[in-house]
């Protein structure tokens, strides 16, 4: 290994922020012989807010630079790479320097993300160097029986990380015990919840941990064929996963007599989703893997009895699988020592919205929502006020800031009306309208309903219409009762989780933010100034200098007046686009 190593973060988030260009610059630097270093690639370390990230490792240790653009990279090259002088101000994480950004990692406990951002996901040896595939070797060398593996997973207390929270070991046990020799294993990587990207990051950053988890699961349940069902919107994850599968096959980790375990063979293929949210539901996912329309089926029979091609099938989520090698290698007790009595281990959250440090954070179960938002999240962006947090995507709910001390565990979150879900955490401030949020989610579920159940298909449409009416200022108070009635009927009348939980965003906002609904209905006002139809723009004649800027910008010619005097807005012509409000240099435009 060379004394100097430069690593560029090339996850989807890094690439979107311009990491590709930085890599090219470093590559061309290597061509002229001025300086020698090892150029390497890694994926997302979770600090998406500081992308692109470039890490320089020399004899002193590592220094991770954040928000690197071309100018900044040139300075890093000049100073740190060539002269060996680190540029402390831009360092976001380091072995030898303190950084304010250290608090991003402070409250975290990284199990599923243990290798993300540290290894080159394209190189299996990087994974092996960090104890990769040792759990599998442990099973082989100790000759652990499948039942013993299942016992360990049950004892660890691991529950499904896709949202349902079903005990993983039990699911494996059911599939193992189901009659028949032909069994299947599926990894659910159809991460459809808007606002969630844990699984994408995990596959992009450490595909082998998922593959190793799957191999162990296949051994435990007795499956010889497996699929990863990944959404097509994740091209980079799919590419890296396919590459990792071919590497694992070359290393004899997939195929026949895996790791020297006689008679254990397992092959793995990737199936790409085709853009249907409902396929995250397990029976719909199975239909889709079979090449059919992804519509859910009635349970029972559960997939563990009759799943893919009507054979016993076990489906687990990406993050669940990534935890498995760690549990086998470190023991069930090490895992169950983390977390609360009912929720063991850690959970990865995708922090987004109006938060200062958006990204991925893996925290021990049991810490509070506030601790995540203020710890790794760094609090609200631009000193705004924390108003609400949305957990669990379209099946989840919006919790108010007053419930910020709710601990993160399956039961506590369910009791608030939200759910743990897959781990999306969208933080909202006073500029987010809760009625609009509910409308947004209903619009989503309404579009994504597969149409099989009447209440989900038509009920969500009716709820959406009511919410649109309220956002437009045409709602009445009876609408709220109607929303609650419809919610209950949709919950009871739908076959799958998508329908049953579709009303959750409405129910939680009605429960915690009813006054906002009332303001829309009774006062025809949107307190967050989001619902455009309820806004009025006026010009304060005292502040207006008559500069005419707004009149020139107004797309509907609603602003008239006399130059160097003052201007007025004709509200009948105003389309409430807000351009004048944003652009007035004298803050003379008032919005209500």
């Amino acid at each position, binding site marked *: 290994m060379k004394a100097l190593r430069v690593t560029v973060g090339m996850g989807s988030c890094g690439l*979107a922020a311009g990491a590709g260009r930085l890599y090219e610059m470093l590559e061309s630097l290597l061509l002229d012989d001025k300086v020698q270093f090892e150029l390497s690639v890694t994926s997302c370390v979770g600090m998406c807010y500081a992308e692109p990230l470039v890490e320089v490792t020399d004899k002193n240790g590592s220094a991770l630079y954040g928000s690197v653009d071309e100018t900044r990279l040139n300075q890093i090259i000049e100073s740190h790479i060539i002269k060996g002088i680190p540029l402390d101000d831009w360092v976001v994480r380091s072995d030898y320097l303190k950084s304010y950004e250290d608090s991003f990692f402070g409250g975290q406990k990284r199990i599923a993300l243990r290798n993300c951002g540290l290894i080159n996901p394209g190189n299996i040896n990087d994974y092996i160097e960090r104890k990769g595939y040792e759990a599998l070797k442990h099973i082989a060398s100790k000759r652990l029986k499948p039942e013993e593996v299942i016992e360990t997973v049950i004892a660890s207390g691991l529950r499904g990380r896709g949202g349902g929270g079903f005990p993983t070991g039990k699911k494996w046990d059911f599939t193992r015990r189901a009659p028949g020799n032909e069994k299947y294993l599926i990894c659910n990587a159809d991460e*459809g919840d*808007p*606002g969630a990207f844990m699984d994408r990051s995990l596959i992009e950053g450490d595909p082998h941990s998922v593959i190793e988890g799957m191999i162990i699961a296949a051994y435990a349940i007795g499956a010889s064929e497996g699929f990863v069902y990944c959404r097509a919107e994740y091209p980079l994850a799919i590419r890296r996963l396919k590459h990792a599968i071919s590497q694992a096959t070359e290393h004899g980790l997939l195929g026949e007599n895996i790791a020297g375990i006689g008679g254990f063979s397992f092959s793995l293929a990737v*199936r790409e*989703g085709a853009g*249907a949210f409902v396929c995250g539901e397990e029976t719909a996912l199975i239909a889709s893997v079979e*090449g059919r329309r992804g519509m859910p089926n009635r349970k029972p029979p559960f997939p563990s009895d009759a799943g893919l091609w009507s054979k016993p099938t076990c489906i687990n989520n990406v993050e669940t699988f990534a935890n498995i090698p760690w549990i086998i290698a470190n023991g069930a007790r090490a895992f169950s020592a983390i977390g609360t009595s009912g929720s063991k281990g850690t959970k990865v959250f995708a922090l987004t919205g109006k938060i200062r440090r*958006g990204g991925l954070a893996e925290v021990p179960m049991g810490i509070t929502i506030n601790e995540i938002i203020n710890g790794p999240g760094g609090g609200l962006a631009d000193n705004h006020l924390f108003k609400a947090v949305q957990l669990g995507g379209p099946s989840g709910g919006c919790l108010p800031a007053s419930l910020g001390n709710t601990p993160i565990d399956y039961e506590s979150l369910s009791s608030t009306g939200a759910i743990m879900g897959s781990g999306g955490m*969208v933080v909202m401030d006073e500029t987010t309208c809760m009625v609009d949020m509910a409308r947004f989610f209903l619009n989503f579920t309404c579009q994504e309903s597969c149409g099989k159940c009447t209440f989900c298909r038509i009920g969500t449409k009716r709820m959406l219409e009511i919410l649109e009416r309220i956002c437009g200022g045409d709602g009445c108070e009876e609408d709220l009762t109607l929303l609650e009635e419809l919610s209950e009927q949709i919950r009871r009348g739908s076959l799958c989780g998508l329908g049953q939980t579709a009303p959750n965003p409405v129910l939680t906002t009605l429960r915690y933010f009813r006054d906002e609904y009332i303001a829309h209905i009774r006062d025809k006002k949107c307190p967050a100034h989001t619902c455009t139809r309820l806004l009025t723009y006026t010009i304060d004649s005292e502040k207006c200098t008559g500069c005419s800027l707004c009149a020139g910008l107004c797309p509907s010619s609603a602003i008239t007046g006399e130059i160097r005097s003052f201007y007025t807005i004709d509200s009948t012509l105003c389309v409430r686009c807000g351009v004048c409000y944003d652009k007035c240099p004298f803050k003379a435009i008032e919005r209500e």
Partner: protein
Amino acid sequence: MTPESQETNKRKEADDSVDLSLIKSLLDSEGDTRGSLISLLQGTQSIYSYLPANALRLIAERTGISLSTIYSVATFYSQFRLEPAGKYTVRVCHGTACHVQNANAVTIALCDTLGVTDGGTTEDRLFTLEVVACLGCCSLAPVIMIGDMTYGNLTPNEAVRVIKSIRRREGALK
């Protein structure tokens, strides 16, 4: 002849003129695999940018799956299109995080500059605009994706600039 039937005829002509030999190797390698219909359709679409009717007929013949079943699958999933798409598909993310960061303004700006609405293709067949649920780059919201390239932290103006730079590049290629 009504404008609609003119349109249908035009599409039929376009469908008849596609070169079916392009999907032969795809059908040979995956045609017999159990459950491969969706991958076949994905492969076909990546070749032609859409699913031409006579390609679907060939898949039906080759796999023994009825044409109506194939059509039902093709229309269930939002990824598939039965009309040719532009050279670049511009996907505007409307996930929760993007919604909170005003993705709507980006969409409006893109609709304006491209002169199409959601699902539409520009007249020069360069761009197709698609509003999608979530691209999984939530921390960079609002984002758009063009081909495999993701652009994050956009303002409406920046999104328009991305389109313009592609237009310029394409113009230079001609």
